[in-house]
Structure formats: C-alpha cells, structure tokens
C-alpha cells in the first residue's frame, strides 16, 4: 500500500468512526426522556417506525411519544449538526482560514434579528421562523453584494463585508432588545437566541430537511473541488475551476443550510467551528473525506449536546450554552495535545 493509499485508508477509518459514534448517540437518544419507556419497547417501536409499519391512529401512548416528540427532536438536532458542521467546513476551506465559523458572512446575526422582529410583531408562532430565515439569507446577500461592489481580493472582501453586516445587524438587534417589553418579549428573544431543540415538531423537521438535504448533497458532491478552491483564487482558476460560479453557489447552499437551522433552533455556536477541525484531525485535510466526516460527526455531536441539554437538570439548558461550555474546552484540549493537523 503506497503512502498515498495509506492516507486514503485513514479517510475511510474516520468515516467509520464517525458513523459508529453517531449511530450510538442516536440509539442512546431514543431511550432518553422524561416519559418512561422500557428499552425493549423503545427498540420495538423504532423498528416499527423504520419499517413503515407505524400507524398514528392505532399507536399506543409510548409510541406516540417516541414518534411525535422524541423522533422529531432527534432529527432536528442531527440535521442541525450536519448543517453547521458542513457549512463550517465549507467556509474554512473557501476562506482558507481555519478560524471562521458558519457565521462569517453574517447569517446568524441576520437570523437573530429576524427572530427578534418576529417575536416583537403581533404575528406569533410560525412567522418567527420565516422572519429568521429570510433575514439570515438577506444578511448574506447583503454581504455578497457589498463584496462584489467593492474592488479588491474577493475572499478578503467577503470576510470584511461579513464583519460589517454582522455588526450592523447586531446593532439593530440590540436596539430591538432595548425597546422590547422586558417581561414577555425580551426574555423570549434572549431564550430564542440561546438555542434549543425543544420546539421540535414534524413540520419543523420537514422545513429543515427542505433546506439542509439538497444543500448538503451539493456540498458533498463538490467536496473535492473545495480542495482546489482552498488553494486561493489564482491557483484555482489556473486549475480550471470556475470560481466565479462555484463560490456563490456554495455560499448560497451553505447559507440555506445554516439559515434553515438557525431559524428553527436558534443560534448555536462552536459546533460549526470545532467539528470541521475534528473532522480534519480524523480524516485528513482532503475535503473529499473531511466533509462527509464533518457532517456525520456533527450530527452525532449536536445530538449528544442536546441529550445533555435535556437530561442534566430538570429544567432544559439551552443547547447553545452547552456547545460553548463543552465545545470550547474540548477544542482547547485537542489543540494542547499537540495534534497539529488542524492547520498550520
């Protein structure tokens, strides 16, 4: 086996590891929750659901709890993990900077503002999600527009424009927090922003699948091209990559994914920053390997964080707090242990 083959074998091993991990976490998550169900019963019901023999009309209470409450939540967390990790991997490669997060172009800041608007308006429930999504996408469009309008190195301009847009939307959000009623609206905004999956329902899962699945597929299909893109515009163009078309396409896909998940689950930080690093440490720098590993591992990691969020105390801890509280030291530990493969 040549040295090169050995590197590729490593990629496969990483994929297997991530897959096993995520599968284990999923199985674990099914068994967890305040409504007591015997493990054997859990497996029986899950089997029923997986083989399409589940019928909501005749299902017992335990089955309905699993189907309507736990399963949507598991799917929501997993999809969000896929979206954040995938977008993080994409942006770190595209911007040639291992320190960027999915929010580099302002999507989270935009979505947060949108959610605040939705909460302050007398509209109610569904509109918060729509507002968050639209404002998230609008923020990135604005960033892209500013970058295009200005001359100068594309990638650097995008990052700078992203900072500008994030700051602006952040200021607008602060203003809304200021004018919000401190008893109902302000806490609602604050808790929404901390992130949580307890709002999971099948419609939410459906809408998230609509945004995440096609985008994730695109990212996976073009993951090898990301290697080329990560060499910088000059080399990428010289290698025949149509950067002017591919970059906006990938940015759009990643933005859809992230806006979709933020609009349903609130802002969750660190996952999009840390998981790509872990994926590269596991699978190597080749994005053809690190992208699927990141998505797979991201799903399991997010799900694990959510499991912790709902089981550590009797009240729900917003999952965004946990991802930072655990993600940051976790990352620090990995760095200190000296694995320099994350980046140079």
């Amino acid at each position, binding site marked *: 086996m*040549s040295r090169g083959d050995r590197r590729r074998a490593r990629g496969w091993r990483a994929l297997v590891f991530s897959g096993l991990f995520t599968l284990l976490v999923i199985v674990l998550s099914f068994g967890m929750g305040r409504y007591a169900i015997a493990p054997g019963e859990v497996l029986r019901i899950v089997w029923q659901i997986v083989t399409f023999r589940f019928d909501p009309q005749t299902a017992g209470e335990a089955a309905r709890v699993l189907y309507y409450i736990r399963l949507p939540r598991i799917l929501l967390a997993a999809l969000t993990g896929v979206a954040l990790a995938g977008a993080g991997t994409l942006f770190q490669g595209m911007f040639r900077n291992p320190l960027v997060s999915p929010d580099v172009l302002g999507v989270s800041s935009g979505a947060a503002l949108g959610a605040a608007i939705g909460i302050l308006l007398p509209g109610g429930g569904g509109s918060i999600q729509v507002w968050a999504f639209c404002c998230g996408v609008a923020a990135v469009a604005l960033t892209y527009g500013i970058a295009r309008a200005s001359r100068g190195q594309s990638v650097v301009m995008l990052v700078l424009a992203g900072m500008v847009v994030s700051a602006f939307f952040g200021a607008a959000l602060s203003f809304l927090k200021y004018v919000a009623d401190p008893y109902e609206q302000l806490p609602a905004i604050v808790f929404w922003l901390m992130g949580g999956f307890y709002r999971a329902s099948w419609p939410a899962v459906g809408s998230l699948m609509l945004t995440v699945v096609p985008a994730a597929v695109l990212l996976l*299909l073009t993951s*090898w091209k990301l290697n080329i893109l990560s060499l910088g515009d000059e080399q990428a163009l010289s*290698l*025949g990559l149509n950067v002017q078309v591919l970059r906006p396409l990938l940015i759009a896909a990643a933005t859809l994914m992230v806006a979709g998940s933020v609009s349903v689950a609130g802002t969750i930080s660190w996952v999009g920053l840390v998981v790509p690093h872990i994926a590269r440490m596991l699978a190597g720098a080749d994005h053809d390997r690190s992208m699927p590993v990141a998505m797979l591992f991201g799903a399991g990691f997010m799900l694990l964080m959510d499991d912790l969020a709902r089981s550590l105390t009797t009240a729900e801890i917003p999952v965004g707090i946990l991802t930072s509280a655990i993600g940051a030291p976790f990352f620090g530990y990995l760095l200190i242990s000296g694995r320099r*493969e994350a980046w140079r």
Partner: protein
Amino acid sequence: MAITVEAVRFGYRGAEVIRGASFTVPQGAITCLLGRNGSGKTTLIRLVNGILRPQAGVIQVDGHDVARSPRAEVARRIAFVPQEHQGVFPYGVEELVVMGRNPHLSLVSRPGQRDYAVARAAMEAVGVAHLAGRDYMAISGGERQLVLIARALTQETPYLLMDEPTSHLDFANQHAILAMVRRIARERGVGVLVAMHDPNLALAFADRVIMLQEGRVYREGPAAEVMTPAHLQALYQMPIDVVQLPDGRRMIVTDER
C-alpha cells in the same frame, strides 16, 4: 501551434502596466521572460493564463482566445506553476498533485484510478514519487517546487507557465529545477514560458528570451541573439559583460566590485 500574444495592453486604475506587448511561445522550448521589478512580468503571466483580461489586443493558445474560453478549457491547454509556498491546509503530496486533474473532471466528480495513475506518473517523472504520502508542508522548498511542477504535468497540457519558480530556492535547487523543466520541454514537447529574475539562469536554460521593459517587449527571439551585453545593459541599466569560458559556457557579470 503556439501561444501568441498580440498588441496586448493592460493597466490597473489608469496606470498602464503592459503597453502593447506582442510575442510567441512555441512548443518544445523554454521561453524566458526577463525584466526588472515592475516591468510587468507577473502581470503578463497572469494575462497569458487568462486570470486577467487584456484591455486591448488578443492572447491565443493554439488559436483559441484565452480571455473568451471557459476556464476548464484554458486549463487543459495551459498549466500554471506558482512559486512554492506554505499552504493553509496540510495536504499530502499526492493529494496536491492529483488536483492537477481538475480540468479533466466534471463539477461533481472526484479523481479516479486513472487520475491517480497520471499523478503518480508525473511524480515519477519529476522525481518526487517517494514523497507521495508525505505532508506537503513538511518537505523542503526544492521538493515543494518539484511537487508543484508534478501537479502541472498532471494537467497534461501542451504549455507550462511559471512565475519566478527559483527565487526562493538555493543555488543547487535553482539549477535542479530548471534542468527538470528543460527535460520536460524536450521529452514531452511542452512549451514553457517562465518569468525569471536571474539572467544567468536564462542564459543557461532558455531557448528563447523575451526582454520586457516598462510593459513593452524590448527584444524577443532566440537566446543567443537576445542575450548580448548591449541588450542586457539596456534592460538592467547597469554595465554588463558576458564572459565566455573555454568550454563554451557563458556567464553574465557586472562591473560592481
């Protein structure tokens, strides 16, 4: 069958850098681009590569206008070898080299068996096959430059562009690299356009020379005709002598002591 540059003009924000340049880069030979800093060598390379579009004039590869062709098509004709550098991500040597197959792959495909075979063959030809599994950033500067050349070879193009490939390298590596490039040009019939900073290297390795002065072609033609003391003095604005050794080897020296 050549790269032809005709009456090309290019400028940034009103400052013209290339003021009407015309020349040819034939296959099977090394053409050196010589000139002082700021004469426009790098800009010219970028124009030939299609990264920049000429504001006047036309650049063609085997009859196809570079500025109007799709990127992938240009990349199947011209391969660009950048200066060796530190990247951001720790790709392995083989992973990096196989990226040269990109122009031959569709948007959603990744390299297959045949692509890896081409990559390996290129690495063998250049002499870096033993580095295949190594980290690109962990090898020496000379080895890195060779790897980048291997990547360009993997593109399987009739032409090669290089921008000062030797300026970061030590004396031995400079010669090794250029000797390798000459072999490639001879054995594969590849046409090479290389921007150089050292006229002595041009003297040793170039078949043709283009002297670029303030964005214009000052002289162009076979190396023996162009590399005369008079031309070199005019180009570099300093007293220059071309010294010949008994065995025919020549060297450029200046008057400074």
